[in-house]
């Protein structure tokens, strides 16, 4: 029954999101952006293959961020602000089923967008790589590209879970958005910060605060781990074991965040 409820909620959220005009506006713009790849690569004289791959994957990443921060948070916020949540919680649906269902529905929307954009980017990349074979990275692999795309989606899923957590305790949707964006920026640079503090004896105000920074690096998601554009662009090795570990990290961390969200959301007054 629990799983069924989560699935129904996820399906309804996905349907609602897919029919949202904002989603298609963002996706259409992103498709145009990936097509612009064809023009952008001609501005360069070397490593056209890497430019093409990186541009395509960056377009997917940027679009995903727009979808998480604007569409995803809007769908969550509308449920509360417009009291749509009452329609669901007046049924035998628990808070954790509601949040999990919403999260999975939004993750499905992100997956759909990633697939569409990934295919669009792949088309333009394929053309560039076909037209300029001398500039194809030596070990370029479509499998690595697909794995990098998957990692991109996993990173967005973690970010989405973080957004759900922020939404579950923030007093206003805009505050939740700010917190989510801040978490993204911290997550992208946490590894950098950790390296700077641990390896550099003169790290400004953070000198001697290695333990604090290491603790923070465990609390905030390490989103830079999911950034495999470099590997895909240069045909670097990306082993299956690392990929599986990233999947496990993403799923477990997201589940943990949703669990925390449930605990916090239960304390919220919904009216």
């Amino acid at each position: 029954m629990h799983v069924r409820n989560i699935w129904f909620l996820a399906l309804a959220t996905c349907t609602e999101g897919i029919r949202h005009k904002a989603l298609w506006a963002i996706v259409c713009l992103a498709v145009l952006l990936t097509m612009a790849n064809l023009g952008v690569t001609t501005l360069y004289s070397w490593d056209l293959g890497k430019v093409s791959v990186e541009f395509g994957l960056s377009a997917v990443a940027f679009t995903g961020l727009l979808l998480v921060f604007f569409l995803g948070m809007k769908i969550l916020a509308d449920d509360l602000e417009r009291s749509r949540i009452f329609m669901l919680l007046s049924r035998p649906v628990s808070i954790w089923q509601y949040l999990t269902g919403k999260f999975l529905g939004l993750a499905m929307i992100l997956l759909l967008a990633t697939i569409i954009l990934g295919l669009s980017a792949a088309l333009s990349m394929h053309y560039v790589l076909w037209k300029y074979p001398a500039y194809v990275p030596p070990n370029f692999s479509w499998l690595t590209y697909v794995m990098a795309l998957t990692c991109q989606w996993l990173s967005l899923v973690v970010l989405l879970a973080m957004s759900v957590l922020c939404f579950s305790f923030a007093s206003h949707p805009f505050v939740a958005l700010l917190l989510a964006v801040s978490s993204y920026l911290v997550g992208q640079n946490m590894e950098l910060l950790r390296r700077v503090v641990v390896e550099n004896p003169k790290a400004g105000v953070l000198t001697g605060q290695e333990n604090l920074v290491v603790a923070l690096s465990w609390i905030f998601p390490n989103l830079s781990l999911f950034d495999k554009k470099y590997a895909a662009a240069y045909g670097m090795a990306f082993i299956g074991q690392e990929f599986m570990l990233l999947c496990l990290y993403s799923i477990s961390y997201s589940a943990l965040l949703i669990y925390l969200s449930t605990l916090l959301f239960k304390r919220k007054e919904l009216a």
Partner: protein
Amino acid sequence: MTIPAIEIIGLDKCFGSGRKKNQALHNLSLTIAQGEVFGFLGPNGAGKSTTIKLLLRFLKPDNGSLHVLGNTVGHDEFRHQIGYLSEVPVFYDHLTAIETLLLSARLSGMTRQVINQRIPMLLERMTLTEATNRRVGGFSKGMKQRLGMANALIHDPEVLIFDEPMSGLDPLGRYQIKSLIAELKQEGKTIFFSSHILSDIEALCDRIAVIHKGVLLYSGGLGDFLRGGGSLEERFVRVIEEADHACA
């Protein structure tokens, strides 16, 4: 002795803190028997919607307890036994009418077979058949109200809780909802609804409760309330004014 459909005991609810503290409900106690139509009336801001939201566990009480068909709200699962219509029914704009009802039915644990029977029946009953596959975002207020009613009835609950079901409707819409409530009463459903439209209360209710500024002023039979003479409106205004003078 049959279990009451709804039982509220010593309910307190406060919003805000410090200087902005607002005592929305104070020691509210109500009992609604099974099969009766119970009107919950009071002026705007009296605490009617707050009471309903506490009943549905959208809010948590500061003190007191609520029970629905013997199930304690906040401890036992009871939502499969109630149907709720909010003051302003809000749905997912991009889902169609049938998709909305399907979602509610599935979440209520109904089987596919039963769903396939009830959805067309309810859509017809609410005169929404032509709008079955239209997205709810394009519905008028009356259509949304009727869809909300269908949504509340989809799983054939024993207890129905309506928060100002006639508000904002045109005369035809109000007539349709009133007729429906009368039909549901004939079917033996318990209906607890809040309203500040006294003529509707007078036409439909067996028993009423009057609430003002979070305090219960009267709970009992409609006839007993009117015993002092005058119309329901006159009696209601008098009760409110007496309460205001007592507070002053």
